[in-house]
């Protein structure tokens, strides 16, 4: 009972947050609502016993990307919502498009769900002890993509530092 209520609460948080992020006029509020939605999705991961994924979701999306979005928001021309109004025809078109997409997704989803075989015993590790398995996968089968992504991120990090330092130096030179 309470589990169901919690599950529904998480779903509601994710959906309401996402809707709010899309519909609210105040950009800052929209970004915060996006954070709410991301937290709801993290809660859903907890229900799937994917604790590691839930933690990573919070670290990466809420702690990292959302903060970045918030910074970007503050640099945007008009945060407080006096944005250009969406034209009527675009709204109408969007509604029709959403309806078509939704019904298609519903049809496809129900067919896929119906055709899906019964899940075999997928999980080998006890719930909540999946870090080792993830680590084996990342450093085994997926080692190359993992290292490539890590290398890319390191290059980006070093590049960012180097860029800032070069700017600083030119500014120092300019100021004498």
């Amino acid at each position, binding site marked *: 009972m309470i589990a169901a209520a919690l599950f529904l609460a998480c779903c509601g948080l994710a959906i309401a947050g996402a809707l709010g992020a899309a519909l609210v006029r105040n950009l800052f509020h929209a970004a915060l609502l996006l954070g709410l939605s991301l937290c709801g999705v993290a809660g859903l991961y907890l229900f799937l016993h994917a604790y590691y994924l839930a933690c990573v979701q919070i670290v990466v999306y809420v702690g990292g990307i959302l903060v970045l979005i918030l910074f970007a928001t503050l640099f945007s021309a008009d945060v407080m919502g006096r944005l250009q109004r969406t034209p009527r025809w675009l709204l109408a078109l969007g509604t029709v498009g959403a309806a078509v997409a939704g019904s298609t997704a519903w049809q496809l989803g129900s067919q896929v769900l119906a055709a899906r075989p019964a899940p075999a015993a997928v999980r080998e590790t006890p719930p909540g002890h999946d*870090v080792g398995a993830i680590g084996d996968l990342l450093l085994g089968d997926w080692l190359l993509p993992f290292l490539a992504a890590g290398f890319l991120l390191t290059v980006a990090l070093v590049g960012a530092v180097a860029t800032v330092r070069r700017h600083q130096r030119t500014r120092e030179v300019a100021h004498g």
Partner: protein
Amino acid sequence: MNGLGYSVDALAQWLGGPEAGWLAIAIAVLLVQVAPLLLAVFPLAAVGQIFERKIAAAIQRRHGPNSAGLEGPLLLTFRLAFCFLPRARQDRLFAGFCRLPMIRSLLPLARRLGLGQLAADGVKMLGKQDIVPRSADGVVFRLAPYVALCGAFLPFCVLPFAHHVVMLESDVSVLWAIAVSGLTVMALKMAGWGSGNKWSLLGGMRAVAQMVSYEIPIGLCVAAVVLWCGTMDLHGIVAQQYRPGVLTLTGWNLLQSPFFAVLAGVFFFAGLAECQRTPFDMAEAESELVSGFNTEYSGLRWGMFAMAEYAEMVLIGALFATLFLGGYQSPIGEQWIVGLHPLPATLLHVLILGSKVLLSYLTMMWIRWTLPRYRVDQVMRLCWLTLVPLALVALLGVALTMLAIGGVADGAAYGRLAARAQLAPGLLGWLFAWAIPVAGGWLLIRAARARHGQRHPALLQLTQTPRPGGHG
């Protein structure tokens, strides 16, 4: 000592059984344990404040709070407890109580220590008007302190306080602690923006930039410890640092290799920056930003931010102890403590962890009242050009040390918590792990000296950078 764990399990069962999963357990934890924790940490934060005022006074050769005694709060308590008696009887009872031999000698001491200041501050904070500025973003402004409290208190859920006394046992507890403490960043952003005030916004931006930057060295330090211990479970990390015998402290991560000493230093300074403590309190620089992100807050909402700051100091101290100083384990003779009856063992463990936390707490205060604050650019330079490279090198060093001394063996059983796949280097391996990096570092420094003399770029930079003292 599974009492706490069992109570949570029972409550989780009652809430909906195993399929309710983690969330039901989280709710159970909230009900059973976070409430007492809050009841314990809130006064701790308040005590922290008065403690800090006394220490600041001692460092600055002042007296600090020295005239508010406990008579007032005690009289109030008496009046409430004996409200059924007439007022004159209450007064006579109280006078009698104050004449009791113990109380008579303790009350002046409490007055000299200014303990009553605590109650006065609390009442003042509760009684202040809760002001929301007209230009503020109402909802965001009001919500920010709650988010800050969440970010400060949720990490305590996974902290092992004593052997098997941990609220949420999980394989990823270290990650959880780091993840949810990131919520504080959101709170500061909300406070800074929601206040509708340029100074608050600037303070919030500085705070967020600082916290986001310093999370990276912290993450690297944690990664090195996780690498060494082979687990992301804080309880497992504590168990890995256990050694049977008299000198339990030989197992502490801090003493395993010089790289860990570097990592511990990096972690402590980065943690200081995460708490926004001096010398990293640029975000609330009162001489230029009024008070930064909490300029517009008053009363209890301001109190929540203060509480979150003190709770975060406790958290950093506890994480430092857990990652590097063997957690709740005693430095000597841990095996006898584990062998005790669970109840005294738990009490001892909590006390030991508490004293380790107190040690870093005191160090933080000592630093705050001794050092001037860094400028913004200095804060960023320290993070990106000093702490991050240091942590990266130390992480590499830890990995190489593991390769060199190798030997993954089964660890000693620590109570019921068996240490998994423990590195057991032995005395020779340990000497090796210390000797090679120390010798290497010494050679490097000598080579740099021989090549650059005293004109080494780092030295030049140090001497040419203006001292931050002028900012006060």
